[in-house]
């Protein structure tokens, strides 16, 4: 659009005057073919016919432009007094999806007629359809367009679905929900019968259909990440943190064995450590951690085997990272530090580091052992007349 406001001064007209008189009426000239559709690489013969009387314009001096660029004169020739022909070969894909602008101009440059050229390729078969259902309430599907994607023409994608043994085809209506090639079916989904899902791609040059994907809603269920993830210290234990969460409320009424995964990393690292195989519980202890370090922890959920489905569901997103820090070494001087005990402790810790996973049994045992070690250490100190320091809070102090 031309910059600057309209002139209100010259001749009292608000409207910017055209440079050239407008000579075009609907009958002035016509280009043939009008709005053709062509395959890339094909040729085009076009004509611009001027409807003139004897005083009117003739084909003399006419010229062509394509997308605003004047075409070389050797591509045109006059067929007769009122017709200018054009020969284009080996056409490239259209510059814009609204069509290439082929224009026939009079000698003075004014536009006599125009035609939109649609040059492209038919669509290729879409593939890689994947779908998931959030809490069994809806279905979102994604696909990849045919191998080259770029057809140069507007290509319409339509996601279709139907229940396997009930004949009616349905069309998805909410597109572009998670990217350009996606669709969301918000309601009226049936369970216990598989769906057949496919994508149809259509453009001016043809259409293509993906392979049919058959799926059961119950096999592709995902849910929200577990809410209320809390990470806290385990007393004074400097290499452990306790993670607690709540099972996703949206699925709480459905019988299923949830699976969880926890991942954690040190504050300034990008490497996550993953704890797998957390089945059907809402707490876990991380062990073998570095003392005095800030950790970020996330949890995600998989509604495994929902309603008797034999398959794993789809993992939820990770919960928002929760941070906590392990106690520093030496924060609790009651820790045993004498020779042989230390050796044994080191061995135990080493074993633990290697097998850091969530097994409540082994931790209970370990805690009992540590509590016993402290007690015996305290007794030893008292016998020797050394009183414990002011920081009397036991190893089982309030969790932070």
């Amino acid at each position, binding site marked *: 659009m031309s910059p600057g406001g309209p002139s*209100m001064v010259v001749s009292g007209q608000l409207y910017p005057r055209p440079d050239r008189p407008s000579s075009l009426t609907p009958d002035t000239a016509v280009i043939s073919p009008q709005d053709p559709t062509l395959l890339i690489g094909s040729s085009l013969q076009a004509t611009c016919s001027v409807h003139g009387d004897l005083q009117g314009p003739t084909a003399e001096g006419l010229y062509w432009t394509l997308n605003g660029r004047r075409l070389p004169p050797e591509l045109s020739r006059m067929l007769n007094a009122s017709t200018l022909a054009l020969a284009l070969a080996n056409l490239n894909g259209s510059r814009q999806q*609204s069509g*290439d602008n082929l224009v026939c101009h009079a000698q003075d440059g004014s536009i006599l*007629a125009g*035609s939109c050229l649609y040059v492209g390729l038919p669509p290729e078969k879409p593939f890689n359809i994947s779908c998931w259902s959030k809490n069994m309430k809806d279905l979102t599907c994604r696909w990849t367009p045919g191998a080259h994607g770029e057809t140069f023409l507007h290509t319409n994608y339509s996601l279709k679905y139907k229940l396997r043994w009930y004949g009616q085809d349905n069309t998805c209506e909410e597109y572009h929900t998670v990217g350009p090639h996606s669709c969301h079916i918000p309601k009226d989904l049936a369970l216990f019968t598989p769906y057949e899902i496919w994508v149809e791609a259509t453009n001016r040059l043809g259409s293509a259909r993906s392979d049919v994907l058959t799926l059961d809603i119950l096999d592709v269920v995902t849910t929200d990440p577990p809410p209320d993830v809390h990470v806290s210290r385990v007393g004074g234990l400097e290499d452990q943190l306790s993670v607690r969460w709540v099972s996703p409320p949206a699925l709480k009424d459905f019988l299923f064995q949830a699976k969880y995964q926890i991942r954690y990393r040190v504050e300034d690292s990008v490497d996550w450590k993953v704890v797998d195989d957390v089945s059907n519980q809402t707490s876990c202890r991380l062990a073998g951690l570095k003392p005095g370090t800030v950790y970020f922890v996330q949890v995600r959920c998989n509604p495994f085997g929902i309603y008797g489905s034999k398959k794993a569901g789809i993992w939820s997103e990770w919960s928002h990272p929760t941070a906590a820090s392990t106690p520093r070494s030496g924060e609790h001087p009651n820790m045993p530090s004498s020779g042989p005990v230390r050796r044994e402790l080191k061995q135990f810790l080493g074993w633990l580091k290697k097998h850091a996973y969530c097994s409540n049994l082994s931790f209970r045992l370990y805690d009992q052992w540590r509590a016993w070690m402290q007690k015996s250490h305290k007794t030893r100190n008292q016998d020797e007349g050394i009183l414990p320091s002011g920081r009397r809070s036991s190893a089982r102090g309030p969790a932070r």
Partner: protein
Amino acid sequence: MLACLCTVLWHLPAVPALNRTGDPGPGPSIQKTYDLTRYLEHQLRSLAGTYLNYLGPPFNEPDFNPPRLGAETLPRATVNLEVWRSLNDKLRLTQNYEAYSHLLCHLRGLNRQAAAAELRRSLAHFCTSLQGLLGSIAGVMAALGYPLPQPLPGTEPTWAPGPAHSDFLQKMDDFWLLKELQTWLWRSAKDFNRLKKKMQPPAAAVTLHLGTHGF
């Protein structure tokens, strides 16, 4: 050339006239309408840029000036300066209201299936804003006690199956629609600025009075 069905616009719910006693007058709503025209002008600049790029060259070239064909039925912002100056308030407002009703109608009829989803969204958003401008103008008219223009029987715009319109001619129509919208928004800003000045209380007289007292 498309003709347009827009009975919805002609039957906007009647905006009740403001209570005259102690109210600030139509001033604030005139200011609001002025502000809206500036906002729409800004919105249109970016929308038009994107849309013309979608139409492709030469439509997006500066100073492109194709023949105006079917655009004859669009309401023209162009007016002789003296005529514009001498418009009474009612006529000034009515012309604005009728113009945007028609323009909105044409905008809504733009069937651009091939445009990217984002462009279609911008168009829809602009239509909503334009509808807001119409409501604002209606508010000013009601505050000043002018009736909203009603379509005369027979002149009411209706759908007529237009002649088969080539894609290129349609592109030219789209171009002129955007151009006319731009011109109208420029003009409306001046229309409402003029109305604003007219509605301002004459403060000058009071100052003079105080001045003479001092002598």
